């Protein structure tokens, strides 16, 4: 009897900023929890799939309770080279103060295995989502405060964009939460000593764009409010990659049902304002002398883009 080997891809990540996957106490990273990164990947890949019009991607890949559909993939994480940074950290930036308790850093390996038969284009999309999330987004929790930037080491997977393009619908309609409108940016900066402060200050500046009288609820919905809403925009701490210092920013809308219900008509306005702000030359003052905005890298799309054009932008972003 011939042994059948499973279909697998392996990815190794190195943390550029610390990351957090939760713990038994609030804010404490006691260990690497696989469920944290599973949820992160599920959210990102599903959002991307919806933007591309593949609405049954979530059920096919991640399963659905109540319909006897289990996951089609298995995630196995090797966290033997992940360490905990025990030192607590307090950061003041802009108007606010943030407190970071323990967090994780190091090298992490993901082995993705197909456990049920799966159409090839879904497999392709899942792997492309991993590449794109590693390149332009973040992993795990507290990424709105700077954590979760992982660099992907060289890997064997070769994306087949042509195959995926053939399976996309010509158009799609927005259905619930998804990456129907998205912006991913790499913002280069001059070397800074305080990487957390750089990211938090930048987020604070963006938050201040929405201080008009009638924008309190909108601001809370976009930037998050404790107990009320998650943040739609994630701004990383500063990190160095390929010899360049930068901050990573990404925003996807709609990110919650509440936002979809109350602010669906404000999506384009929100993203455009943020895009204008990050493209603007910055003032040179005591705080912002660290920031320069040349060679800004942006990938963005909105609800008017077709699935094929969105895929094309993703392809260009990965090949850049």
């Amino acid at each position, binding site marked *: *009897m*011939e*042994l*059948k*080997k*499973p279909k*697998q891809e392996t990815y190794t990540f190195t943390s550029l900023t610390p990351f957090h996957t*939760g*713990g*038994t106490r609030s804010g404490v990273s006691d*260990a690497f*929890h*696989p*469920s944290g*990164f*599973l*949820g992160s990947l599920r959210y990102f890949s599903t959002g991307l799939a919806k933007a591309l019009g593949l609405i049954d991607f979530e059920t096919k890949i991640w399963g659905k309770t109540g319909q006897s559909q*289990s*996951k089609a*993939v*298995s*995630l*196995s*994480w*090797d*966290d*033997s080279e992940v360490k905990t940074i025990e030192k607590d950290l307090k950061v003041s930036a802009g108007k606010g103060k943030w407190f970071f308790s323990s967090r994780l850093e190091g090298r992490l390996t993901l*082995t993705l*295995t197909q*456990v049920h038969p799966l159409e090839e284009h879904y497999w392709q999309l899942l792997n492309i989502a991993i590449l794109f999330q590693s390149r332009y987004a973040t992993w795990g929790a507290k990424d709105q405060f700077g954590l979760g930037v992982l660099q992907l080491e060289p890997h064997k997977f070769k994306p087949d964009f042509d195959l995926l393009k053939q399976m996309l619908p010509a158009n799609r309609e927005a259905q619930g*939460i998804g990456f129907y409108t998205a912006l991913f940016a790499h913002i280069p900066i001059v070397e800074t000593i305080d990487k957390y402060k750089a990211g938090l200050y930048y987020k604070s500046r963006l938050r201040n764009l929405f201080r008009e009288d009638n924008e309190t609820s909108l601001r809370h919905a976009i930037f998050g409010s404790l*107990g*009320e*809403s*998650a*943040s739609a925009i994630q701004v990383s701490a500063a990190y160095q990659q390929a010899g360049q210092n930068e901050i990573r920013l990404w925003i996807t809308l709609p*990110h*919650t*049902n*509440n936002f979809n219900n109350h602010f669906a008509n404000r999506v384009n306005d929100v993203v455009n304002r943020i895009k204008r702000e990050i493209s603007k030359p910055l003032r040179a003052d005591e705080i912002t002398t660290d920031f320069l905005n040349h060679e800004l890298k942006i990938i963005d799309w909105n609800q008017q883009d077709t699935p094929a054009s969105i895929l094309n932008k993703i392809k260009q972003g990965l090949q850049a």
Partner: protein
Amino acid sequence: MSFDWLADEDSRTLVKNTSRSETIKLIALNTNTEKETRNKTLGVFLANKTEYSLGWRNAKDFLLDNYPFAGMPPCSARLKLEFELLSPLLTKDDIPYYLFDNPVRRDHVFHKPYLSAASLLGLSMDAFRRAYPKEIDSNNDYKQQTEQAERLFGNAPDGSSSKIEASQGRLRLSPAWFDRVAVLTMNKRKSENGTGSNPVQFEAIAKGQTSHFIADYFDPDNNLQQTMEDLGLWLQAITEYWPILGLGAKRHAGYGRIKPRSASLEGISWPVFSKAQNLSDNTINSRQQFCKPDFYEDYLADSGQVIKRGELNQRIEKLKNSQGNKQQVAELKQKMAAVKQDKAIPPQEKKQQITEIKKQIQQVKKGKGNDTEINEKIKKIEQEWQACQSYYKQATNAKKSVDSQMTQSSYNAEFKGENAWQKMAQWILEGAKND
């Protein structure tokens, strides 16, 4: 078919000097029938019993490591597979009153966390189906069409209209025991506002621990090649899939990940592997074949032992007389009778002729004639008898060694390291091919 191994206190209590001792009863609980199928009493002496907290025992004192190999037929085997737990292992218990909603499963005697034998057997069946897939939906149909799976895991009627003959599987697993427990939290985000909902706490077996389980293969057919093939395929399947997919619940999310550490094999009438590291040569050193010969039953006496030399000689004599020699002897006897009746021959000459004929009859009976076929058969009988003697001696020695409750087993083969299970599977399958 799987067993959970339990231990319970026997009613007898022995007092020895200042130590307090207890006799522990080891029970094998058949998880399918919920009946105790084997009951073996082991004497265990616990020194300074008061040092141990209430309800806690040193489980390894009377768990499977010291359980005798007794009663297993020839060509059966025992595998001990050791592994390291790389991520928390989830095994949920059904305790109604507990601190958390999701307690880890614990043994009711020792209260130690464990992964049950039933779980391991189900996981190994899953790995087997993934490793050797067929376009079949149900496990029962798969086993019906895969003889190795049917032998390993048995058959159980599923209540459907198709009649499946129930059969016990030959593979019996032990649980895997652990010591430490961790507390984990999951906090699902609500889709309304993206904030966390009520965090759920649950217990899991803590990562970083080493454990092992035992896999026994009962061979009722005395077929070493078949045993090797079944066990090798099974081990190959779990070696390929368990490190990737993990064990326990939520394994596809990354929980229950393991890394093999060592593999040890103990076989009754199995070949002995003297150099475990020489697998790259694809050769097996010092193989000694101790399989039961096909003709073994022909050489057994009523006592169950191999016949003695005296009886063998009688058989040989019978063979000599039963063939063409018979005709020659009859002819000579007729000739002798004719000489006796012939009154024309003088008495002295008659006596000489009769003596001569008798000598010829003796020579014919001794096979000193030209009957080479008879000689070949006699030679074969001698060789077969020698082989039966040899097998009987080896089988008796093997039974003696497993009957004595050894605390330290001697293994036919042993491998260590991350590739230990893979190497063991290769060694077993190589043996099945060469056998």
